[in-house]
């Protein structure tokens, strides 16, 4: 057949039309569009059986109840657990993104041994047997050398069974050097010791308070049990309870308070004492409490007839309205008004402990604030501040000690706590670095770290890093890589917070005992062991009285035995709680006079050592004309646990931009130093320097640089690391003369254009 042009064309047209009318192009187009709707590399979440499992969070000290939504054995969502004491149905950003921690590729899956150096670690996985053997051999050798005291431990907390097992281990081993990471709870404990004479934890009946004044406490920044504080704050608003925030910077707590008192930095305690002076001079204090249940409120004569000045006279003489107004920057009339309102309320409460409360602070500041609660007669009362008995569910027999241990335990603590210098304190880990760095050879030869990330969280972290570099053997008990683990010689991996049992002791500030139980929500993913189990294995390997002090086969058995007949309830309901009603004033105090003490003998000496009130920030004003203060945010985790990728998404670009922390300065400061919005600058302090970006804001006063805490992690992954700078690298601890606790609230600084 001859194909002429005409038939060729018609054939072509026909074919075209045919194809167009056939299903082929439509099918192809459809397939194409379906393909673009589900690219093979876009994950498709698997469906499965849905279940909810309740647990309690160990991600921070607050111990909130959580509810985990599961699909088959995958955890997909964490929410608050309804009805859980305190947190009741809510959780904060950290816990809600906790699944990202569970499934993080940076989870440590097996014991790791550093075969490189501390500066350039080389991780090699080893078997559990080998790891335990190596650690116990090291520890056995140390004891043989008669130096059990060269073992030290830094624990994230001093409450609960895991810290108790570490303390016990050190006891049996023969070292007094158990340290727990500091917090404002330590300062409150000291305050109650001095003013009430009791060894107790502070409790706040926030829900029943009808007037609240916070001296820098970040009610909405993570202070106290954060979720409970949020709920309390909203309840105050509904009940029209007046809230006053004393803060140098317009923190979120200040912004949400009914009144913000913008005090000069470091003058919080002066304001408290100034208010006390007004309350006393106007005779607005609780007469019954002052007259019958306090010691030395008025001047008195001792047995030898010597005249002692009372609190009343001391305050009236030293804290005149004009002086306090000048020192704090708050108008006299304002101070009088607040003092009158406070004293006039039926259940006023004054809170102390700056920001999230990660730095303990000055004991005198706490005492000054607590004196206000006492003047209002609101101690151990409804809506007031309570001295709470500490958790006592751990009732183990005393650890057995052999001769080596006994000798070791008699040596003074390396951090100086409980020594002549700081007789009242229990643990001062922030002093460790300087002591190690000053010594010719590190007094700590083996360090155990559990539930803490001291390399990130202790002040002057560069010095801490140097010190840790000098410790011959560090064992880190951790579930994820962090700054401290990076410096370890051996890492013993712990299951993540959703894969293990652990008791959660009563959170800070509660007015009832609440013991929660964290439980495995999903099947453990890797071969990891609870720190308690690792410790039991090490103890057993060491043998002798040490092994004898750890009679449990495993940590779970230890937990079960510890709770005894309460274990069943705890395991079933997830928590046990016990109501508490505080004793009346006649039975509340255990000071020598059995009365409330406004002032303490201990302080009398301290006054000479360093004066009262807030610590003086380090640095010369000439070289460092500005004052650097930190601020906390609920969108960042400031504790040992690094923030999650989801949290990083919430962080404002006024806190972090690219790899730079953004610091806040007043426009006037910016002009003075030639700095511009969003531009880079070098921030330096006597401790270090960091390149930052500046944000101009009227939330801070001229002369202040405000810097967010919680940034600048060096690990564990690209979502977190290398973002911003760690505030702790720029700050130095300032020792409180009474307690030795870190009382630093800021440091002098310089900011120059980069």
């Amino acid at each position: 057949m001859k194909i002429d042009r005409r038939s060729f064309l018609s054939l072509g047209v026909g074919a075209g039309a045919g194809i167009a009318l056939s299903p082929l192009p439509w099918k192809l187009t459809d397939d194409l569009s379906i393909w673009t709707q589900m690219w093979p590399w876009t994950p498709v979440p698997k469906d499965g059986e849905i279940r909810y499992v309740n647990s309690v969070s160990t991600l921070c000290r607050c111990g909130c109840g959580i509810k985990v939504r599961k699909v088959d054995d995958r955890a997909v969502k964490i929410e608050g657990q309804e009805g859980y004491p305190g947190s009741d149905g809510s959780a904060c950003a950290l816990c809600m993104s906790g699944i990202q921690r569970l499934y993080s590729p940076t989870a440590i899956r097996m014991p790791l041994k550093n075969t490189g150096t501390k500066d350039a670690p080389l991780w090699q996985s080893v078997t559990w047997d080998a790891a335990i053997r190596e650690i116990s051999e090291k520890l056995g050798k140390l004891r043989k050398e008669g130096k059990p005291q060269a073992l030290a431990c830094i624990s994230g907390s001093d409450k609960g069974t895991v810290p108790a097992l570490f303390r016990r281990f050190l006891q049996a081993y023969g070292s007094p050097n158990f340290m727990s990471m500091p917090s404002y709870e330590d300062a409150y404990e000291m305050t109650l010791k001095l003013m009430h004479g009791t060894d107790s934890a502070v409790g706040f009946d926030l829900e029943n308070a009808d007037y609240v004044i916070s001296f820098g406490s970040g009610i909405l920044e993570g202070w106290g049990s954060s979720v409970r504080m949020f709920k309390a704050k909203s309840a105050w608003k509904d009940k029209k309870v007046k809230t006053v925030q004393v803060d140098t910077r317009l923190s979120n707590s200040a912004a949400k308070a009914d009144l913000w008192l913008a005090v000069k930095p470091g003058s919080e305690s002066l304001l408290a004492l100034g208010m006390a002076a007004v309350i006393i001079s106007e005779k607005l204090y609780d007469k019954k409490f002052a007259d019958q249940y306090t010691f030395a409120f008025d001047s008195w004569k001792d047995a030898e007839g010597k005249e002692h000045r009372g609190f009343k006279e001391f305050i009236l003489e030293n804290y005149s309205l004009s002086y306090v107004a000048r020192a704090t920057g708050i108008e006299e009339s304002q101070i009088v008004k607040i003092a009158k309102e406070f004293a006039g309320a039926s259940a006023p409460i004054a809170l102390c402990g700056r920001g999230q409360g990660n730095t303990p602070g000055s004991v005198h500041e706490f005492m000054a604030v607590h004196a206000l609660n006492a003047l209002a007669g609101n101690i151990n009362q409804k809506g007031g501040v309570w001295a709470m008995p500490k958790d006592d569910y751990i009732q183990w027999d005393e650890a057995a000690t052999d001769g080596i241990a006994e000798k070791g335990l008699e040596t003074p603590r390396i951090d100086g706590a409980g020594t002549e210098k700081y007789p009242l304190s229990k643990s001062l880990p922030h002093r460790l670095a300087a002591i190690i760095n000053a010594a010719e050879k590190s007094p700590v030869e083996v360090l155990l770290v559990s539930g803490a990330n001291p390399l990130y969280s202790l002040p002057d972290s560069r010095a801490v890093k140097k010190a840790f570099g000098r410790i011959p053997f560090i064992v880190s008990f951790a579930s994820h890589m962090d700054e401290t683990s990076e410096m370890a010689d051996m890492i013993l991996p712990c299951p993540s917070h959703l894969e293990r049992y652990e008791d959660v002791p009563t959170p800070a500030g509660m007015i009832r005992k609440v013991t929660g139980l964290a439980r495995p929500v999903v099947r453990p993913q890797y071969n990891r062991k609870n720190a308690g189990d690792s410790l039991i294995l090490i103890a057993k390997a060491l043998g002798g009285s040490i092994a004898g002090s750890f009679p449990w086969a495993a940590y779970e058995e230890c937990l079960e035995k510890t709770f005894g007949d309460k274990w069943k309830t705890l395991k079933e309901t997830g928590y046990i709680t016990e109501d508490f009603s505080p004793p009346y004033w006649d039975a509340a105090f255990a000071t020598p006079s059995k009365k409330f003490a406004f002032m303490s003998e201990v302080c009398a000496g301290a006054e000479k050592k360093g004066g009262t009130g807030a610590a003086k920030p380090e640095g010369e004003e000439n070289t460092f004309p500005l004052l650097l203060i930190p601020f906390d945010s609920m969108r960042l985790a400031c504790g040992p646990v690094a923030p999650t990728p989801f949290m990083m998404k919430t962080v404002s670009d006024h806190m972090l931009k690219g790899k730079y922390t953004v610091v806040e300065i007043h426009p006037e400061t910016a002009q003075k130093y030639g700095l511009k919005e969003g531009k880079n600058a070098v921030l330096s302090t006597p401790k270090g320097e960091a390149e930052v970006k500046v944000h101009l804001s009227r939330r801070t006063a001229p002369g202040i640089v405000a810097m967010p805490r919680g940034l600048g992690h060096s690990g564990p992954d690209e979502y977190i690391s290398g973002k911003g700078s760690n505030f702790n690298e720029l700050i130095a601890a300032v020792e409180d003369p009474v307690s030795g606790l870190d009382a630093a609230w800021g440091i002098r600084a310089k900011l120059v254009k980069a």
Partner: protein
Amino acid sequence: MDSALIPEGVKRCSFGKFMVFISIVSAVLLWGVYAMLLCWLKGLNQTNMNDYYGFALWIWADLAVIALGGGAFFSGFLKYLVGKDELKNIINYAVLIGFICYSSALLILAIDIGQPLRGWFIFWHANVHSMLTEVAFCLSCYFGVLCIEYIPLVLENRQLNKVPFFHNFAHNLHEIMAVFAATGAFLSFFHQGSLGGVAGVLFGRPFAYREGVFVWPWTFFLFTWSAAAFGPCFTLSLTKLLEKISGKKLVKDNVIELLAKISGWMIFTYTIAKIADTYYWAVVTAPGKGQTLMEFYTGNAFYGIWILVLEVIIGGLIPGLILITNKGRKNKYLLTTAIILACIGVSVNRWVMVLQVMAVPVMPFDTWALYYPSWQEVATTILPVAYGVLLIGISYRYMPIFPQERELNPID
């Protein structure tokens, strides 16, 4: 070498010279194609667009070329429907430019969307309320019309025209071209308007929003009007440019002046309407939404009131005034200045209606968002320019675009 393909009776540069030109432009084109492929394969993260700047540089280019390509439909409208027969001497070129502009616009849209392979959903799941749906339909249809208008030009190539079928086909197409021109004009009136509507209907954006009649905001009419007004200036500019490059006169002055005069009056009247629209918007519409005129032009590093002056006065009123005067049109320099200013004016208008809309904060606590394009965006925006230059070069060389060329440039 290629002399057999070159139209009879005209002179073209040497093949070698032509190939150098082709190579240079192709290199630029390939750079653009590379950027385009990056956008397709790696996604729009190759651009500097963001969630505030969802429309950016190339969408401006898209709108601008469609406005500038408006010379095609409006010349067609004038020639076939109004009966300005002299325009037959420039209509081929206008159609070519229109074809380039519209094919570029469609290409840009295909790069711009996040899921190009689903692009056809716009037809399949069409939402009649959306101006973009209207744009898509009319734009595609009108592009079809432009193809039909451009095909006879191609078929008139010396060699192709020897094929009887092509010859007849082209001839027949010419016969019914008025029908297509009318259809094209109708479609254009609509899609140019819809493009104006794209911004004008954004009642959540007081900077863009305009009141109007029925479903059409005033920008609907202003865009159609401005495309008709300014498009011919672009045709004229490119004619002047080609004349300059080829060193030959290609279109007679009376044709140029006629088109310039019509364009001038269109621009002049458009500008008056635009001023009225701006005035009403500044005094009634925007304040009704709580914003004042100057809020739109202060508080950022780029958008000052200068841009309004540039658009309306320098790029609108001035060229309009020049072109409506006989003296202005006759003066070579004034004419050139006016048509260039006009092209700038309409381009600035499209810029403002796309990019400034994205930049202006609406929520009182929001901030100005400024943006600069990535090289991939620049390259992809230049891509159609290179493509246009190439197509003009080839078309001019091998097709009888300018009917008066032979007469104006006798070879012997």
